[in-house]
């Protein structure tokens, strides 16, 4: 070892070896560049630095023990990563974390992909000497996609930062102080009652089992074991490039074929491909785009495949909802087409057909529960399992995935083109649309842009009839930035693809937990390789999609296609609550509520409310009406919204509200179901 050797400028020594400093943001990055994988919980290269877990401690000569993540690398630093005190401190820190909550591995859903567990093994923590008394906090199982278990939280803040910094939402934050600190949604509400869009990136970065994917495996097993049910399954594009990771088959190109074999052995009657529905989506969305372009209306068109993005739009950008493509996502297109056509073909009742999806996504669980995706209460997609859950089912059945002979999918919905496959990557939908519209596979600057991994990339595509300005974004914080640019008129686009998760669906929260940053790139590359290996790569060349139009749908955007493949959106409030009572309430008073949510506030609702309060005072209506300020009547595009005795006024002004109150006082208003908007 050479601690005494002279240092050249711009280098430091790590455990006696010289390492150059090449613009790394912190000492941790320099150390990892030297192939020393220092343990961390709270450090993610894409998030801000928090410095909470203290596992990356190192000894720096002259400075003692410091956290590498929050130390600037300086030339001449002498860093030691493996001294006795450093090892001991890391171990004690980890031991304290293990003592801080419920870390009972065998019963934890994260077991096997838990950072806390693997670091405890790696650092050789063989007993926990501390026994912290603690009360058990309740689980939050309110949402369709995620389960929050505060008892397993180590307060690293990864979820807080990913939601704020990558998704621009800030659903979770630290609450309270000292030993009482808890990560929680606003006002300790349930996840389902706040602005969470179920993207699940919090679960993807959570190093323990504090936020996990909701498990629906038991329900699927029950359906498979029910002899009266015919269970069919669709597999999303991104699943096939990630499932193998759970079985040591990361680079195996036959994972999809082996998965088909596994699904049949698990008892699924038919195995289909969501990529078929993705091809169908391209036909519909491409046609919709060209029609809007011809009319020059509702541009830019925003893609609608990503349910987290759709919910984000519904909550945050109500005024722009008409711009969202009316196409259902591929999952839901598949579901409605399958439920509409398969019962006839298989000679069974719709009630006995069970459609299961295998998705890389937690938000898809929530999407499948949307009431508009059901016919008379029977959902188009009955159950959504994530890649993780399918992996568990296969493991549970004892199937050796790597040993199974690859099998082909069932027809007709198992047939797809490369265009459907690349849906799994950020930029994939755009590339598939370009292929379909231009009609050829291309290379060149436009596709180079579309395929890059930057947060937002833009390109201009030359088409007959003029240029098409394209933007592709991933991460909802990037989407928000783009929306603000479009709103302010700083940018003009014609076509915008948005995926909530970094990297698109292949980086979805339902995928196996990615233990390093290279995983996402590997999945993206694998999808491209699969695309390149396909004979057909343009969606309109999918002959069975063509057949489906002939047999069932007519042509793209036809009324029948609209019935089965398109949808509508609704404005959604972000946070549940009762509003602020501004007058005496109760008795026979007529309820009047004025929305003071963001959009209505911008449109002057606070002033309207003040004027209304003065009116009530002047006219001595205190005994007759009760006034509340509320948040969001889900009509943000038409604010300010005011509700009088269940009747909602949009674009309300004081005179109109006074009139309505006067009518209500005279008993001239039709009674309505309380609390529901009436137009």
């Amino acid at each position: 070892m050479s601690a005494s050797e002279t240092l050249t400028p711009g280098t430091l020594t790590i455990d006696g070896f010289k390492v150059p400093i090449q613009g790394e943001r912190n000492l941790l990055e320099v150390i990892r560049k030297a192939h020393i994988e220092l343990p961390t919980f709270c450090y993610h290269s894409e998030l801000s630095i928090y410095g909470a877990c203290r596992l990356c401690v190192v000894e720096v000569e002259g400075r003692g023990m410091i956290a590498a993540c929050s130390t600037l690398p300086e030339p001449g630093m002498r860093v030691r990563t493996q001294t006795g005190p450093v090892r001991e401190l890391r171990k004690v820190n980890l031991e304290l974390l293990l003592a801080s909550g419920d870390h009972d591995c065998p019963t934890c859903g994260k077991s096997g992909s838990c950072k806390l567990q693997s670091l405890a093994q790696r650092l050789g923590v063989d007993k926990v000497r501390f026994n912290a008394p603690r009360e058990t906090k309740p689980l939050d199982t309110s949402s369709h996609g995620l389960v929050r278990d505060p008892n397993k939280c180590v307060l690293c803040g990864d979820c807080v930062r990913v939601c704020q910094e990558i998704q621009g939402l800030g659903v979770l934050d630290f609450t309270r102080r000292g030993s009482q600190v808890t990560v929680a949604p606003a006002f300790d509400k349930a996840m389902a009652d706040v602005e969470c869009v179920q993207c699940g990136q919090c679960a993807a970065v959570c190093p323990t089992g504090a936020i996990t994917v909701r498990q629906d495996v038991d329900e699927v097993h029950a359906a498979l074991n029910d002899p009266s049910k015919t269970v069919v399954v669709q597999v999303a594009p991104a699943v096939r490039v990630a499932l193998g990771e759970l079985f040591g088959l990361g680079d195996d190109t036959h994972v999809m074929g082996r998965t088909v074999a596994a699904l049949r052995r698990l008892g699924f009657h038919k195995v289909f491909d969501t990529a078929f529905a993705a091809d169908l989506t391209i036909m519909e969305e491409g046609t919709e785009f060209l029609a809007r372009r011809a009319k020059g209306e509702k541009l830019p068109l925003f893609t609608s495949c990503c349910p987290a993005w759709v919910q984000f739009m519904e909550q945050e950008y109500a005024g722009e909802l008409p711009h969202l493509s009316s196409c259902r996502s591929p999952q839901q297109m598949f579901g409605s087409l399958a439920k509409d056509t398969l019962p006839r073909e298989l000679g069974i009742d719709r009630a006995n057909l069970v459609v299961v999806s295998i998705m890389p996504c937690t938000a898809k669980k929530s999407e499948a529960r949307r009431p508009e995706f059901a016919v008379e209460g029977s959902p188009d997609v009955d159950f959504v399992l994530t890649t993780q859950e399918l992996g568990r089912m296969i493991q549970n059945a004892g199937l050796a995935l790597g040993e199974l002979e690859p099998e082909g999918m069932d027809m007709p919905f198992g047939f797809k083109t490369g265009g459907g496959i690349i849906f799994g990557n950020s930029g994939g939908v755009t590339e598939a649309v370009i292929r379909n519209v231009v009609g050829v596979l291309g290379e060149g600057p436009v596709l180079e842009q579309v395929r890059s991994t930057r947060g937002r990339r833009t390109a201009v595509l030359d088409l007959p009839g003029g240029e098409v300005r394209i933007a592709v974004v991933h991460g909802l914080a990037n989407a928000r930035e783009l929306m603000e640019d479009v709103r302010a008129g700083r940018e003009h686009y014609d076509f915008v693809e948005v995926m909530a998760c970094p990297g698109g669906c292949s980086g979805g929260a339902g995928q196996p937990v990615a233990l390093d940053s290279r995983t996402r790139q590997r999945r993206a590359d694998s999808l491209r390789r699969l695309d390149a290996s396909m004979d057909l790569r343009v969606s309109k060349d999918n002959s069975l999609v063509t057949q489906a139009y002939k047999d069932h749908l007519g042509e793209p955007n036809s009324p029948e296609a609209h019935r089965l493949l398109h949808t509508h959106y609704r404005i959604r409030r972000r946070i549940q609550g009762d509003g602020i009572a501004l007058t005496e309430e109760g008795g026979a008073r007529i309820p009047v509520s004025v929305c003071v949510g963001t959009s209505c506030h911008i449109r002057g609702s606070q002033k309207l409310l003040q004027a209304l309060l003065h009116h009530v005072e002047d006219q001595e209506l205190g005994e007759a009406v009760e006034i509340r300020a509320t948040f969001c009547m889900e009509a943000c595009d038409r604010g300010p919204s005011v509700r009088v005795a269940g009747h909602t006024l949009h674009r309300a002004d004081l005179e109109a509200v006074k009139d309505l109150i006067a009518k209500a006082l005279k008993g001239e208003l039709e009674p309505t179901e309380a609390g529901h908007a009436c137009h």
Partner: protein
Amino acid sequence: MEATAPMAQEAGRRFEKVIQILDSHHRDRTRLVPILQAVQDEYRFLPEEVMTLVATSLGISPARVYGVATFYSHFALEPKGKYVIRVCDGTACHVKGSQDLVDALQSRLGLTGARKTTQDMMFTLETVSCLGACGLAPAMVVNEDVHGQVGPDQALEILDGIRQQEGM
């Protein structure tokens, strides 16, 4: 119900005040703490929906506002009484018998460790760690008024004085 009109006025006035507070801080999100302090002065606590209104007006998430509001013990998330009595239980006051003070006030007000505010919303009784008035131990603060070297009897006298003033 003579109280109706003044109460209606009161709630409306408070709401207007919140809007004024937000405006006077230019709806600047870095001013969250002083905004919450001013809002609490109006409501005597931080109602959930008012926090949501503050978040909406500042363009930050309600979770962030809640995080800040729960961090500082000065902020109250439940309604407090018109008179907030804070008995110091720092080392000096504790040694000088602050617990006797607390016991006397609790029994007179019908409060317990868990129930800190009287049903008529007149009194809230809290203990605080140190008022910085150790020379006056045991010390007690009623809203903004500091009382030093308070024994249980004096504490009850102060309480009765307030009640008289309020016509109770």
